[in-house]
């Protein structure tokens, strides 16, 4: 994460981990408010517009341990007009900022895929930052099926 945001975001990740080691698990849950704060950390006071971003994630996941997701952004990806970053946020995981991908005109197409963990059904938000410093977003509600039987820990 280049620029001044790097340290801040990194601290967010680490702070979450530190909290959990001293508090019961439930205390470290991200919340819609925590997600809003994490988004603000990336976006600042700039407006976030709907559109241009497509968030492809299955509406129902059979297991939250690996939920495939693809974020694509409508952009010519030229030197003068490209997508600089794609961020993904969630409401209920312990940390709201899931990933931060850095792109440029060399990518030709602003689309990334990965797999994320979701502890519960929740809202996912993808935000793209353009080379002009504008922000666009898309969101999706994901239902995560709870396992019927749990793994043997012994």
């Amino acid at each position, binding site marked *: 994460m280049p620029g001044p945001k790097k340290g801040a975001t990194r601290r967010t990740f680490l702070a979450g981990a530190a909290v959990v080691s001293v508090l019961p698990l439930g205390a470290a849950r991200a919340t819609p408010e925590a997600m809003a704060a994490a988004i603000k950390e990336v976006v600042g006071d700039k407006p976030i517009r709907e559109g241009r971003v497509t968030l492809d994630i299955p509406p129902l996941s059979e297991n939250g341990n690996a939920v495939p997701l693809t974020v694509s952004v409508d952009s010519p990806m030229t030197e003068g007009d490209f997508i600089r970053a794609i961020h993904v946020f969630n409401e209920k995981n312990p940390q709201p900022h899931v990933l931060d991908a850095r792109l440029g005109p060399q990518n030709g197409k602003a689309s990334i895929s990965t797999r994320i963990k979701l502890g519960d*059904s929740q809202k996912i938000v993808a935000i793209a930052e353009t080379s002009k410093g504008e922000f666009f977003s898309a969101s999706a509600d994901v*239902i995560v*099926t*709870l396992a*019927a039987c*749990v793994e043997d820990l012994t």
Partner: protein
Amino acid sequence: MLRASLLAALLLMPLATAGRAQGTSAGTPVSYTVVDDAIPRPLTASPGDASRGRAIVANRSVGLCLLCHSGPIPEERFQGTLAPSLGGAGTRWSVAQLRLRIVDGSRLNPDTIMPPYYRTTGLVRVARAFEGKTILTAEQIEDVVAYLATLKEQ
């Protein structure tokens, strides 16, 4: 008809007596008497609590009920379809009938998939952690019965 039921009850009595002989420590079943297709007398001196019962039914690792049944517990999103809805259970069955169906449904139907919630005998290869323990305690059974009795709507 009545005679047949009474006979069945009498035949089952020795089992109940055997249960009592095992003692009264936590998890060891107290004795009970089956009359017709029901257990008329509560397993505990104090009456069950319907709100505690609801929590037990809703809990996937305590009551386990919603793994197989659905029920009027809207906050639990994933409910089973293996067994009838719990909605209307309090209309379909009396408190005494509900009690036997939870305590040991196999006394009414040997092929039932309903686990025997208050039986420790005649089981095969029970995991060490659960050996000699009932799925629910007498108090929990009374709580669940009290809750199910309130479910009058289909």
